[in-house]
């Protein structure tokens, strides 16, 4: 009797399932019911494993340096936010947040505009030689830019020095100049370009033909027809660019240096060479650095997960 109820319950739950291999009718077999339960337990375990480190770091942020170094308890002895506030103020995180925000906004615009325009040309206009360009872009996916970070940095530094001379500034790091290459670098991303290109290729071609007959220029077609139709992909790329820009630290650390535009992650990377740093400061700084992306994720999780899944299939 009990067995029967169990199998009915599982069968009901499985009745809407269209993908994967288990189906509602499988729930008649005891062995398959066992599978269903094991699978459920494994799912719970995955959630626990994924969430634990994040929960731990937030809890650890409540501890003072002595408790953190010596206590073997996961739960802190007090939940007062005073330690968090102290670290926030001492490390001046307000400014780093602002700087990261500036970086992110520029990165999002640059990622959407430049990759979007290039994808539009490669997917729709297809001028002579577009295949060569596409092949060159694809090649960059195989030889990732991290390996040429040294040359990349040398180039950026040269251009910035030249710009500093032009604007008669002494040290480009005291100005907002070094933010510009950090924004622009997000305009050259092969992965996002391909996501755009695939999306644009799926747009109905009749629209463009019609617009062209109406006398729209190529650029106008992009701004008036392609962009409004592409909101889903624009959101996805903008979010990808935002998280990437928030997370980056190698190049920002080199280019922004100790200037006033240092970002949150560049500050975290500083802990590598800072001498008077306490482990609790590191822990709290880590919390400060993961909260904004988590909020962004909470808001846009649907678009993000869809974007990832969609991009992967064809890419």
């Amino acid at each position: 009797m009990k067995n029967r109820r169990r199998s009915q319950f599982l069968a009901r739950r499985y009745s809407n399932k269209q993908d994967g291999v288990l189906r509602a009718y499988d729930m008649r077999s005891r062995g398959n019911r066992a599978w269903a339960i094991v699978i459920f337990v494994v799912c719970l375990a995955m959630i626990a494993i994924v969430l634990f480190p994040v929960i731990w770091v937030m809890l650890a942020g409540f501890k003072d340096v002595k408790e953190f170094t010596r206590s073997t308890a996961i739960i802190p002895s007090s939940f007062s936010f005073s330690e968090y506030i102290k670290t926030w103020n001492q490390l001046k995180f307000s400014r780093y947040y602002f700087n990261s925000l500036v970086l992110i906004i520029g990165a999002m615009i640059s990622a959407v505009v430049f990759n979007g325009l290039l994808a539009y040309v490669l997917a729709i206009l297809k001028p002579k030689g577009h295949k060569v360009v596409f092949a060159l872009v694809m090649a960059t996916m195989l030889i990732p830019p991290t390996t040429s970070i040294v040359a990349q940095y040398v180039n950026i530094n040269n251009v910035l020095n030249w710009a500093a001379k032009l604007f008669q500034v002494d040290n480009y790091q005291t100005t907002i100049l070094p933010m510009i290459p950090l924004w622009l670098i997000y305009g050259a991303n092969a992965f996002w370009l391909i996501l755009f290109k695939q999306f644009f290729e799926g747009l109905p071609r009749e629209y463009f033909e019609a617009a062209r007959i109406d006398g729209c220029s190529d650029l106008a077609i992009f701004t008036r027809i392609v962009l409004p139709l592409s909101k889903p992909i624009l959101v996805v790329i903008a979010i990808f660019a935002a998280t990437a820009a928030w997370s980056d630290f190698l190049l920002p650390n080199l280019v922004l240096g100790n200037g006033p535009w240092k970002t949150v992650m560049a500050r975290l990377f500083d802990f590598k060479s800072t001498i008077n740093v306490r482990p609790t400061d590191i822990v709290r700084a880590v919390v400060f650095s993961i909260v904004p992306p988590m909020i962004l994720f909470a808001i846009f999780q649907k678009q993000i997960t869809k974007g990832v899944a969609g991009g992967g299939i064809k890419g």
Partner: protein
Amino acid sequence: MMKKLLSILLVVALAIGMLSACATNTSSSTDVAAPAETSAASTSTTAAPEEKVVLKLGIYPADTDEAAIEAMEGVITRFNETHPNVEVERAYYKYATDNIAPMAEAGTLPTIFESWFTEPQKLIRAGYVRDITDLLEARGWLDLITPAIRSLLSDADGKVYGIPRDAYALGLMCNVELFEEAGLTNPDGTIQYPKTWEELAQTGKKIKDATGSSGFVLLAGEDLGADGWHFSNIAWAYGAKLVTDNGDGTYTPNLNSKEVVDAMEMVKSLKWTYDILTPDPFSEGWATGFTQIGTGAAAMYIGANDAVEQPTANNGLPVDKLSLVPIPAGPGGQYSLSGGTPYMFAANATDAEVNAALDFLVAFGKAPVVDESTVESLRAQAATKLERGVPNIQRFPCWTSPEIQAAEDAVLAEYTNVNANLYADYFAAVSTAGNLHTEEPGDTQAMYKELGKVIQAVLLDENSDVQALLDTAQANYIAILQEEGILGK
């Protein structure tokens, strides 16, 4: 086919355009860094002192350090009273190996900045800092720099490129609370500290048994440089001579001698015989060591007089519970590694700018001469230390100037917050002739790294072959020196 070829050509043309554009940039930035022109032009500036000078103050404290900023603002105010023509630009700069080159190349280094004790020779060779010999000579400061430190700041021709902020000598920092708990105290409030490395192992054991805290923090962390830096003290105590300077710019390493092996065996025994090290020496770096003794997780750590704020104010140890004692001796004697934090000056700084910086140091209390603002600055600094719970102890003399020494002593007497006996033996030991040892010459960082790897290996494996590991370190270091063309025959 033809179309394809054309488009390839177009892309290539584009790439070449980029290349050549960058090539021009490279040459233009060379001009920026050319120091000769700028200093030549500056001679005229010194002639007219009322002319405005901008002093880019790289030694301005980090924005996190509010107490230090407050003290520094006071210094700037006093300085501007006597030097109204100098505009002080607050240009906090934290020296790091990955930011010095780009800034120097761009000519954007602050007028005056602090570096590390390991760096002056490297900076001098790279041409990133300027020769200030004549300016020091004119002020009569040149011969006041302690000779050992002066050689660290000079090139082969004896030109001086920097002045010392502080000197330091390594000692043994002890958490007095743990010594008290283990009953290792004397009636006068001092502690029964270990005199030799053997004793250190036993003292560590006693403390660990009595308190559960670790006896000693040994660095074996990712920053292999700090690991080797500490280890060289131990090696010298066992009679090792790690590197011979051949005097012709070449060096002969000797990392696998009997003495080094003995020292390394001692390190190994700290882990495998006495088991007094912190649970994870591989995660210990210069900063975590202070956290360990500051929070009472460990009792002893190698540290210097210029870092007493680390375990106390920064990591919570009560100000009177820190003791700094002489570094333990070995069969080869007792040696403290000593060096100094140098002030260096940007290669493109003008004479007027450097002079402004030197005047500023007088007001700041870091110069060999004293004026009214000096004493006020020293007082302000001592008051800040009192407030923050940092032990107020004497500085390690880096100038042979009785004048500044007397001023410092007077201020110190006024602002005492610790039992001087907890530091007395340390200062006695480091002022004993022959006890101080400067860093080994050569590619010191590379040597530290090789020694650090050996330390990691002996702590990992109880059965590791110390001699074989050091043989490898020696071979590796020889290869590095050879590649750099500075290996002696």
